[in-house]
């Protein structure tokens, strides 16, 4: 479990660490691109929306790769949100809006997405072997 302050400069540090871990496990570039994007979007949402950018609030990140499943959890210290209330950014009226695509992309690029009941923790799974042609070392776990 990693703990970072609510500062956007940490977003790339976290995703770079995950990228290195995936590369070390011979995961193909396409899956790494998707996982990096989802990790950055989730951490960004946790920092900016969950914790409201308050630097004294932390974001907790954990991930693992086991049996062809890459699992990523991101939790903030905010009050949570209802993901059903996020407007569909692909709706005609929303296409020109500046924000709202992060959560949508996570749902599209990950194979499983769940939230805790409070809505301050997101749990994501990317299946590596099934569709993505990766060569994950089963049983090897990250942080």
């Amino acid at each position, binding site marked *: 479990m990693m703990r970072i302050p609510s500062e*956007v*400069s940490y*977003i*790339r540090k976290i995703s770079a660490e995950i990228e290195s871990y995936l590369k070390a496990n011979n995961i193909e570039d*396409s899956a790494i*691109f998707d996982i*990096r*994007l989802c990790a*950055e*979007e989730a951490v*960004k949402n946790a920092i900016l929306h969950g914790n409201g950018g308050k630097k004294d609030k932390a974001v907790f990140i954990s991930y693992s790769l086991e049996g062809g499943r890459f699992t990523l959890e991101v939790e903030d210290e905010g009050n949570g949100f209802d993901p059903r209330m996020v407007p569909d*950014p*692909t709706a005609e009226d929303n*296409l*020109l*809006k*500046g*924000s709202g*695509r*992060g959560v*949508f*992309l996570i749902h*599209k*690029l990950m194979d499983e997405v769940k939230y805790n009941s409070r809505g301050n923790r997101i749990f994501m799974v990317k299946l590596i072997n099934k569709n993505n042609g990766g060569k994950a070392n089963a049983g090897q776990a990250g942080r």
Partner: protein
Amino acid sequence: MQVRQEDKNGIVVCYITGEIDINTSPQVKKIFDRIVGEKKEKIVINFKNVSYIDSSGLATLVEILKGMRTYGGKLKLSNLSTKVKNLFEITKLEKLFDITQEEGDAIKSLS
């Protein structure tokens, strides 16, 4: 992240090199605010050297497009990688943006 600008027969071609994410999007926006502020009528953004874009980057491109629409400017995107283009497809932004495979096609259609 860098943006190189070339004038090709009255068409401004912008070559972005690097990643467009939450850290670099403000730079991209600043550069294009200046170009759009000059009311350039025809702009092509060449993505050949853009390896990554996130939702902040997509939002920045939407802002550029909105800015150009205020004066009737035309924007085309070219040379997107498969992964970057996929994000435009997933988010349906391909409906908003005119995307061509090659820069030459974009220039030809604006000429």
